[in-house]
């Protein structure tokens, strides 16, 4: 029996990639480039955030142009709670997750009543409202943002060590990807992809499409919020720019580059974009131009993104 929607687990390639990622801090230490561990951690966190957006765009057909708002909700939740005395990552990161989920519920409940271009515009509008709100609130640091004196604590391990933080982020990303695979292979995932392809017909065969979309929107918002909480924990600072529409656009570019509707699309896109940025930014300030050309090439010649290309060769 053919199963077109099932996402198989390829054990050997998966194990290979995970092993390589696990060895990365050792390699960086050997090469005497510890800075790359922090950079790689940032990539992992963006991979988590872009993956959550891929769930919306690639699998749910919900082209959200306001995903940065949920990242911001999670980041500011952590940045507010830490100075108030909450130091444990076991509390802070779930709080970031809940902040993202809660805000996504509010935005989704309204936005998901619309479709197509209207949905894109209304999610953008909500995100920009959040951006200007943060910008104008003194308690959130206005345009200076907020800084943290310390990284959260995670029980026995010390997140102030970059390598430890890297492994924590890696574990979270892998758990999120595994969870997403389970979700997509479950009946809910099939329903989601049915809604993406033909929402009206899905209603006509009995699916409560609005409720299903809202559920997935909240899940994606939660993951984005967690990503925001991780970012501020890593960097020790957060500014309103994290919520700006350019951030939402950057996340969308990651999804398109990596492959919308592919399990690893968001993660691959995040790696590609951030590595290219890192590699070119020191040579030219015109690096966005390079990204633009790459994006154009992907849309024209590899509409399923990087993961689509890899699949074709496999």
């Amino acid at each position, binding site marked *: *029996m053919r*199963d077109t929607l099932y996402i198989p687990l390829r054990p050997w390639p998966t194990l290979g990639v995970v092993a390589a990622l696990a060895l990365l801090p050792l390699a960086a230490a050997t090469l005497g480039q510890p800075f790359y561990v922090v950079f790689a951690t940032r990539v992992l966190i963006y991979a988590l955030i872009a993956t959550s957006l891929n769930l919306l765009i690639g699998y749910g057909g919900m082209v959200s142009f306001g995903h940065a708002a949920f990242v911001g909700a999670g980041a500011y939740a952590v940045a507010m709670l830490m100075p108030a005395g909450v130091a444990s990552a076991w509390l802070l990161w779930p709080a970031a997750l809940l902040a993202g989920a809660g805000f996504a519920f509010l935005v989704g409940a309204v936005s998901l009543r619309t479709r197509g271009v209207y949905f894109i515009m209304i999610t953008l509008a909500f995100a920009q409202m959040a951006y200007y709100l943060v910008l104008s609130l003194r308690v959130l640091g206005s345009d200076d943002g907020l800084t943290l004196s310390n990284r959260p604590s995670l029980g026995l391990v010390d997140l102030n060590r970059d390598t430890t933080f890297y492994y924590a982020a890696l574990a979270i990303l892998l758990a999120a990807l595994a969870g997403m695979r389970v979700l997509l292979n479950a009946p809910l995932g099939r329903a989601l992809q*049915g809604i993406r392809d033909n929402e*009206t017909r*899905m209603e*006509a*065969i*009995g699916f409560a*499409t609005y409720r299903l979309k809202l559920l997935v929107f909240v899940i994606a918002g939660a993951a984005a919020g967690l990503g925001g909480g991780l970012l501020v924990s890593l960097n020790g600072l957060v500014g309103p720019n994290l919520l700006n529409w350019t951030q939402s656009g950057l996340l969308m570019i990651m999804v398109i580059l990596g492959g919308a509707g592919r399990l690893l699309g968001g993660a691959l896109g995040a790696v590609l974009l951030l590595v290219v940025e890192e590699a070119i930014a020191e040579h030219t300030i015109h690096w966005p131009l390079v990204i633009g050309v790459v994006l154009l090439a992907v849309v024209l010649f590899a509409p399923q993104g990087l993961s689509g290309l890899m699949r074709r060769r496999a």
Partner: protein
Amino acid sequence: MTMLRVGGLQKHFGGVLAVDDVDLELAEGELHAVIGPNGAGKTTLIHLLSGALKADAGVIVLDGRDVTRLAMHRRVRLGLARSYQITSVFPNITVLENLALAVQGASGRDDRDRARTELGAVGLGARADDLAGALAHGERRRLELGLALATGARLLLLDEPMAGMGPEEAARIVDLLSALKRKRTILLVEHDMDAVFRLADRITTLVDGRVIASGAPEEIRRHPEVRRAYLGEEAPQ
């Protein structure tokens, strides 16, 4: 037992009354055809009954329960499903997966065995693993019908299931609907008069959104207004 009772149903688009004070009653197990010229409001009627459109006035009672204000998916769960005049399937997944989705939609469970049973019912057993987008027109029309059937609905609203079909394919649909008769209650909108008069227990004729006649096929065939407005003189004898 009354499966569907519709009273005073009304819908207008701007100044145009598309469905004007329509009353309708379907007994359980009945195959009730709705005929009428293009623009008579037949598809709008199906939109209203299925919940795709909200009625401006009137009541829709399904099996003793008022569903007038219920969303489309709620009506499906209560046993009312529709098919579309313009084929609306999921082209990127297999035929079997299409039907499994419909089973899941109505029951909440991904039950492949039931999907396979429905597949046989619409004669697509040999195409189970083909992508729905690869089907020929007639097969796609049968899959369209199969999606409505697979919800397990007791009341089916079928919007021109034979649209665009050649005589052979149309005959298959007639056979299929004959086999369904009595097992399910069916409201059939169709332009193929041979099929309608062969299958229907009762026929309602709609013109300009109004019911001009309703009754047994023989009555409708002889009805002077129906002949003038729609059937013409070449009505099947």
